[in-house]
C-alpha cells in the first residue's frame, strides 16, 4: 500500500466530537472559575510570614506590659493571640471579597 493511500485512509478515520462538546467544556471552565474565587485570600506562606512578624511584635509588647504591671504572663499568650488575630483577619478579608463579588 502506498504511503499516500495510507495517509488518505488515516485521514478518513478522523472522529468528530459530539455537537455540544465545546459548550459543555466552556460551562465546566466557568463553573471552575467561580469555585476558585471563593478560596482563602492569603496563601500559606503569607500567613506564616504574617504570623512570625505579628508574634514578634506581640511578644515584645506583652513583655513590656507584663514588666509594667508586674504580673506573670504565659509566654505562649502572644503567639496564640497572634495566630487567632491572623486567621481572623484572613477570614474577614475572604468574606469581604466574596461579598463584593456577589454585589
Amino acid at each position, binding site marked *: 500500500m502506498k504511503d499516500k493511500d495510507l495517509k488518505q*485512509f*488515516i485521514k*478518513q478515520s*478522523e472522529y468528530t*466530537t459530539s455537537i455540544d*462538546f465545546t459548550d459543555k467544556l*466552556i460551562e*465546566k471552565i466557568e463553573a471552575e472559575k467561580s469555585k476558585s474565587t471563593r478560596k482563602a485570600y492569603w496563601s500559606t506562606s503569607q500567613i506564616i510570614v504574617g504570623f512570625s512578624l505579628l508574634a514578634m511584635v506581640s511578644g515584645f509588647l506583652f513583655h513590656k506590659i507584663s514588666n509594667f504591671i508586674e504580673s506573670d504572663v504565659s509566654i505562649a499568650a502572644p503567639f496564640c493571640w497572634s495566630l487567632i488575630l491572623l486567621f481572623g483577619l484572613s477570614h474577614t478579608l475572604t468574606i469581604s471579597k466574596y461579598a463584593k463579588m456577589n454585589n
Partner: protein
Amino acid sequence: MADKKLDKVTEIIHLLRNGDLEAFRTLVDLYKDKSLSLAISILKNRSLAEDVLQESFIKAYNNIHQFRFKSTFATWLYRIIVNTSYTELKKQKVSLDIDDNNETRELAFEEKHINSLNHVDQQKFIQMAMEQLKADEAVVLRLFYLCEMSLKEIQSITRFGSSKIRQDLHRGRINLKLQLEQLLGEEINDLL
C-alpha cells in the same frame, strides 16, 4: 496557509491569556476532532475519550501561561492529551464500546461490497481497523498522517524513543493494511 493558521493561533493565545473565554472556544474548535482521534487511538472508547479530552482542554486552559512558544501549540496540546489518555488507560481496564462494535461487525458481515458502502460506512470500517491496532501504533500513525507531525515532534509529544516511533510506524502500517484486508478483502483497492 499553515503560516496564517499559526498567526491566528498565536493571536488567540494572547487573547486567552487576557481571560477571553470565547477565544478559547475558537481554539478548541480548531483542534478538537484531531484531538479526539488521538484519545480514541489510546482509549478505544469514544465516551471515555471525550471525557479525557474535556479534562485535557481544561488543563490546557489552566496552564496556558506556561506555553512559551518554544514548540507549536499543537505539539503542546497533543502532549497533554496523549499523557492524560495514557494516565487514564493505566487507571482502568478499558473495554471496547460493545454497541458500536456490534454495529460495525454486522456491517462487515453483510456489506462487504465496497461499492455499495456510502462514505459514512467506509469511514466506520477504517475507524474499526484503526482501533484494532495497539495504542502506541495507532497514536503514532495518527500523529504522523492525520496531525502531520514530524518524527521529532512525535518524540516530543509521546516521549517515545526515535527507534520505537519508527518501529510503531512500520508495524502500524503493516497491521492497518492487514486489518483492512481482513475487513474488506481485495475490495480494499476500490477504496483507493
